[in-house]
């Protein structure tokens, strides 16, 4: 099994001038995600594993994935506590299935 990260279904968010404002619905409150926080959020939009999200962030900020992964993991954990992100366990795809 592998953990897929997804923006929670009951979440509203708006991006303005590089800053993301995200809120759990229906009660809020809104959170502001600026700078790297916004980059991580926008990398989460299409979902994926932590490694995939970290790779997108790394590509976005121009750093190696191994440098940003720990920070991305910590930030994503905070988003999960706030109810903005959920983890969904899905069966790992066997390498042979790509053949």
């Amino acid at each position, binding site marked *: 099994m592998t953990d897929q990260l997804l923006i929670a279904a*009951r*979440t*509203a*968010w*708006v991006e*303005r001038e590089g800053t993301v*404002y995200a*809120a759990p*619905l*229906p*009660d*809020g*409150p*809104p*959170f*502001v*995600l*600026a700078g790297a*926080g916004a980059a991580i959020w926008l990398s989460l939009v299409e979902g994926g594993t932590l490694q995939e999200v970290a790779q997108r962030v790394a590509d976005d900020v121009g750093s190696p994935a191994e440098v940003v992964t720990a920070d991305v993991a910590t*930030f994503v954990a*905070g*988003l999960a506590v*706030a109810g903005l992100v959920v983890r969904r366990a899905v069966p790992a795809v066997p390498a042979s299935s790509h053949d």
Partner: protein
Amino acid sequence: MTEVVDVPLPVRVELAHAAVQALADEAGVDVLHIKGPAVHRGLRTHAQSGTDVDVIVRPSGVDALMALLAEHDWRIETTFDAGSAFDHAANLFHESWGMLDVHRHYPGMDRDPAHAFERLWSSRGSVELGHVPCAVPEPLAQSLVLLLHSARTPHLGADHPDLAPNWTDRTPQDRERIRALAADTGATVALAAATGHLDEYQGDPEAAVWEVFVRGGDRLDEWSARFRAARGPRAKASVAWRSLRVNRYYLGLKLGHTPTRAEVAAESARRVAAGVKAVAGRLPWR
């Protein structure tokens, strides 16, 4: 990640639309989002992002939505019958989202609110607000809603800024379709008020109500017109009673604190006295 204390107002309003939609979904109640970011871009004027959320609720679902809003810490600031002379909207406030106007009907379309809502709902579109799908009236119906609103908020010395994109600049075919929609929702007279054709309805009791907004008048004029327009003794009695009621919310704003019973009673007496004085001032023998 920082909990926001300074979310820009347009962003907060857009997120608030999404929050209200989430509760409407939970309650199973149909709502149409109007004004502010719900309005089609081409129909907006100036920096019309709005300062609050406005929704029209299917009348049969109003009680259920209001109950769920209360459960989720939306505080009622003014009740439906304590706001305008139209009795159309309740104003609510939420610490996270700000202000919300829940319309149980829309001024001008208030003769048969259930039919008017169904007419708007049947041709609705959808717009994503805060990445949440929200139902909105189709663009022509949005124009009608904005025009009816403009009729209640006259711009002295100039046309209301909503008039050009929603009426003057529209094609003759569009204007005809808006007229047809107004006829179907009971808003013909109100639309005439918005577009400068109220004279065509002289003598119509409903026109008298809109005359107050278009030509100007005080609260006594407004209530008098509402009284004349009300259909039947019960409706007239209701208007007369409500004209004398004290709006606790506005009185609280004036006083700077929640009014006491004594202060409400004093304000009530003042309103009656002011009403008598205003009426007396208009008697022909004075």
